[in-house]
């Protein structure tokens, strides 16, 4: 570790930056790789497949988890799905899709959605369950219906926990979309996995782009969480953490 080749490291990252900003010659005679148009195309494919999977995961898991939490039922199932989700390797999921289910945009979206469902379902359940029962009783006392209690009391108070699950799901899906290249989707993972085409600078550029995408999405979702969290709840939490 004493002789870290710093110059080499900087030049590797410099080459990766060049790969993103302008097309580079490749090992294949007349083909140029990289540059803004190819980067944007793969970024678009990455966002399309991840976005679709993210929506599927939210639509399937959020109402189910919230409803189970509201009724206080199915705790074992909700927790077990969360645990099982963590144990499923993303590479195995993609391999199962390739070997057993077949290659199509729909199949890949469903495989990616499986990476997103467990954290959303479990966190929605836990978030709603943890809402102070006194708040729920107060809602009942004000004459709220079951649906109103869920929408106006439980869901707002559970926002931090639910959004925690949503953020984990988004990161899982973006990460797995990277290796969805193995299942025929030309996402940003194409740069990473097809090194023989894009070269070392392409591989590094792909890694940088995927990391930036994940951090950006995480930041956007954190902003949404801030906007959705009731003011009273954030003030209460700030007071509790400084105490």
């Amino acid at each position, binding site marked *: 570790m004493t002789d*870290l080749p710093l110059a*080499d*490291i900087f030049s*590797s*990252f410099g080459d990766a930056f060049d790969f993103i900003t302008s097309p580079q010659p490749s090992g294949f005679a007349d083909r140029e790789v990289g540059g803004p148009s190819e980067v944007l195309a793969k970024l678009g494919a990455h966002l399309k497949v991840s976005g679709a999977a993210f929506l599927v995961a939210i639509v399937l898991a959020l109402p189910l988890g919230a409803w189970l939490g509201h009724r206080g039922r199915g705790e074992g199932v909700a*927790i*077990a799905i969360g*645990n099982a989700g*963590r*144990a*499923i*390797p*993303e*590479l*195995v999921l*993609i*391999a*199962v899709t*390739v*070997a*057993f289910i077949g290659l199509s945009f729909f199949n890949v979206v469903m495989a990616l959605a499986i990476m997103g469902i467990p954290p959303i379902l479990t966190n929605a359940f836990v978030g709603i369950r943890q809402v102070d029962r006194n708040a729920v009783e107060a809602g009942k006392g004000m004459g709220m219906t079951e649906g109103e209690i869920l929408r106006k009391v439980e869901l707002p108070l559970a926002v931090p926990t639910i959004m925690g699950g949503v953020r984990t799901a988004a*990161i899982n899906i*973006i*990460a797995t979309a*990277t*290796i969805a290249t*193995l299942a025929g989707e030309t996402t940003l*993972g194409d740069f*990473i*996995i097809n090194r023989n085409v894009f070269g*070392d600078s392409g*591989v*590094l550029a*792909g*890694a*940088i782009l*995927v*990391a930036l995408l*994940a*951090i950006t999405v*995480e930041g956007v979702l954190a902003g949404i969480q801030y906007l959705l969290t009731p003011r009273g709840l954030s003030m209460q939490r700030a007071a509790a953490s400084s105490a």
Partner: protein
Amino acid sequence: MGSLAHVLAPLAQIDDSFFKDRSESDCISDNGTFCASWAVDNIDRYIGPALEHIVLVAVSVVAGFAIALALAVLSHRRRWLMPPLTAATGILYTIPSIAFFFLLLPITGRGNLTAVIALTAYTLQILYRNIIAGLANVPAETKDAGRGMGMSDRQLMWRVEIPLAMPEIIAGLRIATVSTVAIATLAVFAGGDGLGSELVGSNITFKTGVIIAGGMAIIIAITFDLLLVLAQRLLAPWRKVRPV
């Protein structure tokens, strides 16, 4: 005798063709759902990658735990360190592991070192957060009692606070270990070992191989989880093991 052989001969022929239709090689060339005889004959080729996988996970989680514990103990005493450390470990957790592997390549090159660094970094957020939560949950009266017995800061930490935080610490270890077993399949992309090597290239289309390698990864995760539950029973017998 002659007539008996005559009667049996067609039977033998039928039997023979029956076995030929379902022979091992046909199952493989048709890529059947699960070729049991191939699995039995070739299970040895998965043993090495499975052991490498276990080593990769064990080294990464132990290293991650040592770092997270040091950071947690440090920020437990110096509170101002907590927000920046939480943010830093959170960002490490946000970067998809496969991107992490390749970001390290220019620095550490291809191989297991790169894989271990990325996997270790990935465990930090979960472990740090759980150790901090465990230490925060230690009742103030218990700490006062320790002080009353004349314990120093260090004694209080190692004899009172950390033992009482054990349930949360082990819950964090369970999550980190199970996740690391899953993510370690990606180490192959960074030139590392493990079961991932049996899931890429032409292997990815071979159904029997996908079932064996994927199944082994899941079995390794469950085994680690059960061992940690056992550890919690031994280290924190006063607390019922809760699902995490």
